[in-house]
């Protein structure tokens, strides 16, 4: 019992939960990116991939519920730790200097995290739930079907292309993945620190985290940018 109270009840324990749920979410970010990048391989590849995921409801819902649990853990420990941190300094300094030696990303983790969370809700409504009201095109994405032999499957390729052709939608997406990579550039490095992994130097860990953040940004942002520059215009009119 003391294990649980010490894990959730201590500042260090909550940082472990923060780091462990962060790793799980990071793995999803990478997996999702690899899946998405198939859009560059043409309609057939990504639609086959999407149909494959849909054909495995057990795995799909297992992963979704697992991710939801990780998000819940990550957010609840963040809120709890932020409260602890705010209460620890009730009176701020009079001098306006930012905390000496701290990076911008490290000071804005809560804000970047909250904006990314808001984006994720929008993103789920946009492409997963496919609520027509939020995609700004007035079309119901679930109506996009592609005929394969005697059956039909969801035309995910068409949904992505049409979805990102709207500049506002693409802009929000690019800003959000930008903030996600800022969040990762600090979060990934801190994860090693929180879990007590000192295998690599602090500079090395920071460098690794920044590179990973940058790759995430370039990878994700490349899709809306490519669509705005004309990706898929031969296939999707």
């Amino acid at each position, binding site marked *: *019992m*003391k*294990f649980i109270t*010490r*894990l959730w*009840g*201590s*500042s*260090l*324990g*909550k*940082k*472990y939960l923060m780091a462990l749920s962060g790793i799980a979410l990071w793995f999803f970010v990478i997996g999702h990116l690899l899946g998405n990048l198939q859009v560059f391989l043409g309609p057939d590849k990504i639609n086959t991939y999407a149909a494959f995921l849909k054909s495995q409801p057990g795995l799909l819902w297992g992963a979704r519920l697992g991710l939801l649990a990780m998000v819940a853990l990550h957010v609840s420990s963040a809120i709890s*730790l932020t409260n*602890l*941190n705010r*209460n*620890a*300094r*009730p*009176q*701020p*300094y*009079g*001098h*306006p*200097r930012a*905390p*000496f*030696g*701290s*990076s911008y990303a*490290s*000071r804005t*983790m809560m804000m970047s995290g909250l904006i990314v969370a808001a984006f994720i809700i929008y993103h789920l409504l946009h492409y997963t739930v496919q609520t027509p009201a939020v995609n700004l095109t007035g079309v119901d994405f679930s109506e996009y079907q592609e005929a394969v032999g005697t059956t039909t499957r969801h035309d995910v390729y068409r949904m992505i292309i049409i979805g990102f052709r709207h500049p506002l939608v693409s802009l929000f997406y690019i800003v959000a993945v930008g903030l996600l990579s800022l969040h990762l550039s*600090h979060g990934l*490095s*801190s994860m*090693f*620190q*929180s*879990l*007590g*992994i*000192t295998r690599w130097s*602090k500079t090395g860990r920071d460098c690794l985290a920044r590179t990973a953040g940058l790759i995430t940004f370039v990878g994700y942002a490349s899709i809306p940018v490519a669509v705005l520059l004309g990706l898929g215009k031969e296939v999707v009119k």
Partner: protein
Amino acid sequence: MKVRLKVWRQSNPGTPGAFEEHETPDINPNMSFLEMLDVVNEDLASKGQEPIAFDHDCREGICGTCSLVIDGKPHGPHQGVATCQTYMRSFSDGDMITVEPFRAAPFPIIRDLVVDRKAFDRIMQAGGFISVRTGNAPDANAIPVPKIAADLAMDAAQCIGCGACVAACKNASAMLFVSAKVSHLGLLPQGQPERQRRVLAMVEAMDKEGFGACTVTGSCEAVCPKEISLDFISRMNRDYGRSLLQGEPGRKAGASDEA
């Protein structure tokens, strides 16, 4: 040279404080920051005003008593230097210098720039010690200590417990202090018997005092007058995690927690 001070004045813990501006009398650029405050206080006393209360003791950077947040940075503009060894030549004639007390809920203000740092003592009492057999002095070097462990332990032992890490951290976290003490004792053979109990007890005491958590901003390391490394926090995190998983040594698995 002369400088202008924007200094926090607060007559006691209960009454709200405010900034007050003072111009210093003519000062020697080679005075330390604390000597400058001495001169200002003599001037204030001669005018019949209340002198500015501030903490100081050894004035040679080893006791950890002096504090002050100078222009938003604990211990002033330099790296690896305490307030007592910050000299007025680091400022320019006519500068406006903001001087504030360390700000953290567990460090309540006693008066002006003096804060109560007994929270650190309570953390030390919880586990910052080793148990030794008293009696005749043991043979020197009877216990072999690996060179790497000795060096690292000495780096951690540099901590003078001034609290600048707490003052600088945006979360008012005491992790750098606690991790230095945990690592200092935990690295040496003499500290092994109580290693697991120590880290659990000291972290618990730290949380009880109301210090914030670490968000790895690195501010503490950047302002530490003894340049204690952030790596010690990582080491403490690992020790705590291991102790959490192992439980206290010598206890039977599943034995009641209260035993």
